[in-house]
């Protein structure tokens, strides 16, 4: 094991003050601090006022009892419909002194809850006099000297009259209750809790209980406050944690305490040294004693640290994690704090310049202010700003784990990723590690929290959080054109407004062997708002002629289904789609290793049909790398092929997990289903929600989703679509959406899926002045686009930029339908800001005349996929 940072000053040696009695003393800590409490409580009106107000977080919190768990106290946002942050992670708490008063740490726990957590504290609500038992940090000279700690006789005497009133098991009980409440349809927490993100915490004696309870496999992280185990038994029933119990810990852990005046200081240090190989953080605040800062308004500094740790660990908020990660982590650079950590930071050797991988990101979080100055060291307040917390954002190169299952709030509920192979250690993994010159990794533009793509809203959050310095905004493709001024939002308007990245393709197109294709179209730039297509350096008439188009990144998930084998015995037609007007002159190539047709539906223009080739190309063109090693290529493909993503909860009806009468729509069912290019069903069955009929909002929503699924499979007049109506089906053809969105679980095309639905080509596409406009003219004798003729005006020639064919102009590969709610806007050019705009587009395009209700039904259906 390796200490990434060891900033302990020699004068404050963590091993300097060893006492065989300190294990017992932890129970006495509340008593030792009592005198300070009495004097301080009189003046703590502000802290109380803040608690009454509900904490400083975005969700005003309340402290309540619950008749279904009378032995505990609940802290939670007043409004449980926390639409912005999705389902609430769970925090269970054991009090100092193993006390049985759930309101004893009211200020601190209210603060945590106000940031979008359900906190379940041991003990019912006690008298208000117990709130904030620990006073402000007493002057150092007043700290109880170690020498005055109780003797064994004193401890035995105390034990005889003051046995702990609570048990470690009550923490596990709290977890059981929360998990059960999440599934109890009649309860207020139904579908509102994130039962996969659970923190176990405790202070002092409660910290010992937390260590015992953290053996629970459901524990996501453990946080020990002013506590640590003794080497041998302390004899405390219900809290008899000893050092050997540390071996049972499995989740990332943090120990926070006061300085050497804290009676638990030494045990915390020794625990840290004795921990198994789990990510671990240890820090103490100078000038703070065993009472911490819990009684200060909103829990004081400890409250801020707690929220940051939980946001990082339970919500995947890397910005919050910057308080703990990197050699220059916020606590590391705060002169008030002393920090040690282990297995939290990446191997610095990942970077040629020797920086920690996570610190390779310039300007992240509070590092750079708008004025360009470095903020005050240890400035914690800056990361509490909501816009600094894009939930779940993974910074390229930061350490950590992509859990087997990860859930993230999205605007319509929750999206989930499932890593079938188990948790993925991000450290050094090529999908998560910057491999090139611009600090980006694959994950930069394919974020789990955004359904493995990236939304425009997230791009905007990143801009605010990094002041435009995030590698996401690399000029090569994160700007409208590399020649534009850096750090000017106008230079990145297409990414910020529409989530679009610049894709520069050579013109004329080239075959895989590099030889030029003689296109049967000519391309003229009619409008160039980004300046790139007429640029002397990047444009169509530059020394290396290129055409720049702007496209959304596709979701990197469910790829086992998206590129499913087209050589299906039950559907022999599919393999013949390498021919027809789509590719008659250039039949889609066969996989040389199998002699079969590959599924070409990976990219918008199908220019790569092999994930490894796509990754290699992306490493060069998006990450600024020179390429990928064979091992990196294999590792990326292996990761992508076992990753599944889908909406897992809906903000109206809760989990979509096959329980509570809901269809099983989440990533698990995709992973468990054999990929099939036909039969789009998404896990729906004819009977699903057939019997719901009540007028309550949840049943109304379920009925709407069911109607939407029916509409999805209801024929409409599909007309004037190149590569649908032109391939023998007739124009129009009366078919359903599922004609093309047919793959059983993901809704991609079961065949080679590039079609001109009208998103890019005028007149069906609205002329968008922010996008380039090209005039494409077919050469005499060329096979034309059947419905637009020899001259086409387009924002993006699509597949024709790969084939050079007139009949491919504007043809784009149909996208998958999973995790849609997490990754707006939609269509390859981001022209639909919402799912409603997607439906509106089709309604106009095919003159369907859906009613408003039908449109909403389709939106609701799409929102749960």
């Amino acid at each position, binding site marked *: 094991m390796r200490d990434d940072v060891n900033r302990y000053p020699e004068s404050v040696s963590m091993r300097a003050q060893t006492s065989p009695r300190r294990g017992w003393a932890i129970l006495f800590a509340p008593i030792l601090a009592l005198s300070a409490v009495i004097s301080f409580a009189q003046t703590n009106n502000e802290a109380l006022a803040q608690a009454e107000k509900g904490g400083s977080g975005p969700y005003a919190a309340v402290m309540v009892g619950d008749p279904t768990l009378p032995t505990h106290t609940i802290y939670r946002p007043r409004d449980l419909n926390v639409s912005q942050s999705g389902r609430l992670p769970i925090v269970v708490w054991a009090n100092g002194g193993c006390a049985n008063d759930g309101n004893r740490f009211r200020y601190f726990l209210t603060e945590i809850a106000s940031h979008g957590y359900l906190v379940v504290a041991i003990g019912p609500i006690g008298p208000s006099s117990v709130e904030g038992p620990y006073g402000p940090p007493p002057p150092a000279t007043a700290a109880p000297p170690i020498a005055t700690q109780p003797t064994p006789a004193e401890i035995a005497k105390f034990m005889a009259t003051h046995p702990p009133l609570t048990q470690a098991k009550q923490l596990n009980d709290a977890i059981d209750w929360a998990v059960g409440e999440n599934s109890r349809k009649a309860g207020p927490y139904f579908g509102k809790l994130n039962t996969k993100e659970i923190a176990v915490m405790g202070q002092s004696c409660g910290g010992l209980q937390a260590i015992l309870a953290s053996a629970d496999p459901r524990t996501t992280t453990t946080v020990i406050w002013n506590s640590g185990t003794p080497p041998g038994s302390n004899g405390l029933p219900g809290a008899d944690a000893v050092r050997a119990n540390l071996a049972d810990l499995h989740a990332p852990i943090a120990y926070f305490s006061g300085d050497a005046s804290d009676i638990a200081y030494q045990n915390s240090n020794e625990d840290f040294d004795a921990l198994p190989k789990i990510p671990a953080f240890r820090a103490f605040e100078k000038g703070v004693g065993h009472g911490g800062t819990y009684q200060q308004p909103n829990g004081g500094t400890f409250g801020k640290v707690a929220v940051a740790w939980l946001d990082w660990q339970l919500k995947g908020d890397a910005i919050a994690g910057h308080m703990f990660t990197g050699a220059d982590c916020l606590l590391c650079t705060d002169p008030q704090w002393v920090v040690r950590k282990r297995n939290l930071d990446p191997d610095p050797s990942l970077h040629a310049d020797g920086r920690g991988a996570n610190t390779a990101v310039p300007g992240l979080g509070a590092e750079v202010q708008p004025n360009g100055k470095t903020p005050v060291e240890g400035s914690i307040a800056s990361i509490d700003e909501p816009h600094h917390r894009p939930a779940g954002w993974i910074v390229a190169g930061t350490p950590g784990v992509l859990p087997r299952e990860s859930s993230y709030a999205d605007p319509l509920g929750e999206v989930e990723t499932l890593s079938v192979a188990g948790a993925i250690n991000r450290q050094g993994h090529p999908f998560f590690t910057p491999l090139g010159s611009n600090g980006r990794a694959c994950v930069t533009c394919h974020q789990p929290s955004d359904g493995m793509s990236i939304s425009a809203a997230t791009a905007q959050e990143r801009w605010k959080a990094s002041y435009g310095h995030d590698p996401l905004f690399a000029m090569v493709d994160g700007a409208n054109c590399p020649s534009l001024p850096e750090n000017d939002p106008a230079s990145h308007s297409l990414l910020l407004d529409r989530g679009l990245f610049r894709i520069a393709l050579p013109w004329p197109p080239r075959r895989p062997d590099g030889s030029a294709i003689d296109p049967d179209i000519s391309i003229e730039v009619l409008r160039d708002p980004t300046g790139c297509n007429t640029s002397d350096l990047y444009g169509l008439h530059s020394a290396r002629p290129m055409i720049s188009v702007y496209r959304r990144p596709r979701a990197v998930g469910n790829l086992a289904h998206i590129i499913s084998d087209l050589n299906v015995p039950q559907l022999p037609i599919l393999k013949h789609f390498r*021919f027809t007007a789509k590719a008659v002159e250039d039949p889609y190539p066969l996989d040389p290793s199998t002699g079969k047709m590959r599924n070409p539906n990976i990219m918008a223009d199908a220019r790569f049909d092999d994930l490894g080739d796509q990754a290699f190309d992306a490493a060069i063109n998006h990450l600024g790398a020179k390429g990928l090693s064979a091992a990196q290529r294999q590792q990326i493909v292996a990761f992508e092929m076992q990753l599944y993503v889908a909406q897992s909860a809906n903000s109206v009806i809760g989990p979509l997990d096959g329980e509570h009468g809901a269809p099983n729509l989440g990533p698990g069912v995709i992973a468990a289903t054999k990929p099939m290019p036909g039969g789009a069903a998404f896990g729906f069955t004819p009977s699903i929600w057939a019997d719901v009929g009540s007028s309550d909002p949840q049943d109304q929503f379920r009925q709407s989703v069911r109607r939407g699924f029916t509409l999805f499979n209801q024929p409409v007049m599909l007309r004037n679509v190149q590569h649908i109506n032109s*391939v023998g089906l*007739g124009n129009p053809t009366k078919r359903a959406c599922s004609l093309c969105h047919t793959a059983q679980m993901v809704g991609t095309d079961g065949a080679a899926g590039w079609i001109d639905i009208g998103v890019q080509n005028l007149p069906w596409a609205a002329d968008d002045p922010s996008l380039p406009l090209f005039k494409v003219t077919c050469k005499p004798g060329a096979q034309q686009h*059947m419905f637009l003729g020899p001259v086409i005006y387009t924002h993006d020639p699509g597949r024709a930029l790969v084939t050079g064919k007139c009949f491919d102009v504007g043809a784009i590969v149909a996208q998958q339908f999973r995790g849609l709610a997490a990754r707006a806007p939609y269509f390859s050019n981001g022209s639909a800001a919402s799912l409603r705009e997607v439906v509106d587009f089709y309604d106009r395009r095919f003159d369907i005349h859906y009613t408003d209700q039908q449109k909403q039904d389709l939106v609701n259906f799409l929102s749960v996929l």
Partner: protein
Amino acid sequence: MMHRRHLGIGILFGSAFLVINVASAEGKRVSFETCPIARDTSEVLCWMVEYQGKMYYLGIQGNQFADWYPPMLRHRVIVEDAKIAADGNQICGGIVLEDFVSSPVAELDPSCDTLLPAEDRYKPPAGYKEALVKMMMGGGPTEGLFRHPNPVIPPTPPFTARSFTVLYDFDFITSRMRSVPQVEAAADYARVAKWHATISAGRGAVKLSDGTVLVERDGIAERRAESLQKTLEALGVPKKQIEIHWNNTEAAPQGFEDWRNRSATITVHP
């Protein structure tokens, strides 16, 4: 532009003649060019054409391996060698045409844009669902949906010279799905036998019943030959084994089975 050549019988007189002919001799074959008409029903689309004042029924929408492909609005359609149902049978409000070949015309014609709304009195043919299933299922359920009607059988020796014919729609360079097996079979044969593949592509002309002759655009035979060459190469036939020929002089239309001239032949030989 489509090339039209009027033969001895003028359109005006020819039309008048054909009206009489059609009316008086049901069962005889007619060829004509017109706008297709789509008629909606409660279930599927019926495809119709209006010819000389009467509505005729072509068929319903199908799949890409059907023997007949529906027309496309925004394009005219050429109907060749159609036999008018002797019993005057009507489907979807049109007299049934039988045993015809239809081809869309590649050139856009926005005036061909008639989509008739569904009316209760017009129904698709009885048993169409079963027919669709049969078409899709091919030899039976065990062979699965969308069975290809002409599966490619790997060639085995002894080899003899063979010819494969690829048919095209009017003015089209790309072949339809139903011709794919011919191209694949030719490529397989040439590749396995390691024989030469000689492509001969032609340019078609259609003589309509009114005497009008429609001629495919100039140069199309060459484009068809070149396109097929690329296809064979992509299917693994070495370029040096492929020889292409084309004849840009349109075939003389006979007024019957002229669609056979919109074709290319791949001859595989030693």
